[in-house]
C-alpha cells in the first residue's frame, strides 16, 4: 500500500493513516516501541486482510470458518485470545477494526480504536 498519508501522535501511541487501492482508509495504531497493536479501516472496499493482519491473518480466517451459519449478514464480532476483529456497514460501505488485546497500551480504551 502507499506510504503513510498522515501521522497523528497521541500520548502512548501514534496513528499512521494509509490509503489502500480504491480509497479505503486504513489507520495503523503504533505503540511507542513500534508495534502495530491495532488497525482500523473504512471505505467502499474492505482492505486486503492478509496485508493488514500479517501473522494474525490465519487466526482470523479460521475464526471466520468456525462461525455458525445464520441467514442475514451481520457485523463481525470475533473475540479471541490475542485477536479481536469487528466490522460494521453494508456492501460497498465497510468499517472495521482489528486489534490484539494483549498489546493495547495502558489506559487505551477500545472506543478510541475507530
Amino acid at each position, binding site marked *: 500500500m502507499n506510504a503513510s498519508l498522515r501521522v497523528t501522535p497521541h500520548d502512548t501511541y501514534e496513528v499512521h493513516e494509509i490509503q489502500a487501492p480504491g480509497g479505503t482508509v486504513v489507520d495503523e495504531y503504533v505503540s511507542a516501541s513500534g508495534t502495530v497493536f491495532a488497525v482500523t479501516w473504512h471505505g467502499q472496499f474492505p482492505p486486503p486482510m492478509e496485508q493488514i493482519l500479517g501473522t494474525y491473518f490465519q487466526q482470523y480466517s479460521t475464526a*471466520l470458518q468456525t462461525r455458525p451459519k445464520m441467514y442475514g449478514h451481520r457485523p463481525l464480532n470475533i473475540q479471541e485470545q490475542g485477536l479481536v476483529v469487528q466490522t460494521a456497514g453494508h456492501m460497498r460501505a465497510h468499517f472495521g477494526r482489528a486489534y490484539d488485546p494483549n498489546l493495547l497500551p495502558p489506559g487505551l480504551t477500545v472506543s478510541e480504536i475507530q
Partner: protein
Amino acid sequence: MNRQELFVRAFFLSILLIALGFAAGCGGSVATGTTSSGGTTSPGSGSGSGNGSNVLALAVNGGPEAATGFVYQNAAFASATICAPGSTSNCVTIDNLLVDTGSTGLRIFASEVASLNLPAITATNGSGAYDCISFVDNSYLWGPVERADVTLGGETASGLPVQVISSANTGVPSSCSNGSTENDNSVELLGANGILGVGNEPSDCFFNGGSACDPSSGLSTPPSPAYYTCSGTKCSPAFIAAADQVANPVALFPTDNNGVIVELPSASSSAASLSGSLVFGIGTESNNQLPSSATVFTLACDAFTTVFGGQTFGVTDTATCAGPYSFIDSGSNGLFFPNVTNIPECSSNIAQGELDGFYCPTTTETLSATMEGEDGASHATSFSVGNADTLLLSAGTASDAVQPTMAGMNPVGYGFDWGLPFFYGVNVYSSIDGQRVPSGAPAAPWWAY
C-alpha cells in the same frame, strides 16, 4: 471446537445433503408458475398511469430455504423476470430475491439464467468482466457481469448489467475472498435466490459523485475487491466503464426511475409472514407522491446521523466518509446498534445459528432515538428490542419470518443500522443519486418517511 459449534455445523451440513438430494436445477427456484413464497410479476395493487404497474409485490416470508427449516428472518423478497437482451420469449422468472436498499444491482445464480445465454460484458481491457462484492462480514459473491433485460412489476430495465454468481469455488482471486471461505454461491448459503439491490446509487461502484472503478477516476490501479478480468484461472483487478458496472435496475427504467418506496404493514410482534409493496419512482405517479408531512433526510456518504443513548452516530468527515455513521437498510435483518444503554447480550448458540451478537433483555425494551439528515431535518422514533433467544427458541415464534424486535450489536464506535424492523408500518422513500427528484425536494440521495 466445542460440541455446540459441531452441532450447528452438523445440522447445517445435513441440510445441505437434503438439498443435494433434490432434482437438479434446485440452484434457484426458477418458477415459471407461482410459488407459495409469494412475489409475482403481475400488476399488484396500486395503479401507475402509463406504461404499466410501478408496483412490485414484497413478501417477508422466510425465503426459499424456510421450508427446509432455515428461516431468513426480517427479509423482504420479490420476483424478477429476466430475459436475454431484446427477447420477450427467452426469459425466466426468479422469485425470492432479497430486496436490499443498502446495495446496488441484481445478483443471481448462474444456474438460474444458464438457459438465457446472457452476453458477457467486457472490462476496458477487452476481457470479460467479473464482479466481486463483499458483505459486512467479509463473506462474498463472485461472478461475471452480463447483460439482461430485467422486468420488475411492470417496469423494464433494458440492457442491465447484472452479476451472475458463479457456482465455482476455485478461481476466485484471493483479494476477493480476502480470508473468507464463505462464498455465498448457492441458495442454501445465501438464503435467497439472489439479491435485488435498489439502493441510493445508480451503479455498484458509484459513490460520492464518481466511480473508482471507471478509468476516468484517475486511479493508477483499479480498486479491489471490485471488478476483475481473468486469464485462465488468474484474475486481476480491472477498470470497467461506469455504464457497464452492475447497475441499479430502477435507475435504468424509462420512467419511475428516481427511487423506490418500501411499503410494509406494521408488525408489533412476531408473525409468520406479511406482504407489502416496492413502489418505483417518487413523485412520478399518483401512487408514489412524497407526502408533505414526510421528513426528508439528506445524506452524506449515503448515510445520516442517529442520536441515541446520549451519543451521536453520524459522519464526522464527509470527504473520507469517516465516522460512526448510521443508515437505513432493508437488507439488514435486524436493528444493529452499539450497546450504549447496557442491554443484556445473548450468549447462547442455538440450532438456528450464532446468537452471540444479538440482544437478550429479560423483557422487551422500548427505546427511542432521533434520526437527523445532513441538512438538520430530524425525526424521533421509538423501537422495541426483544430477547432473541426467546424469539428463536419458543415454539410459537421460532419459525416466524417477521421478527420486529430482533436487534443486535454494532460494535462500540460504529453507528446505527436501521434494518427491516424499522420498515414495518413506515413507508420509506429512498431516492437515487443523480436522478431527478420531485420539485421542492432536495437533491438526491435522501431518505424520507
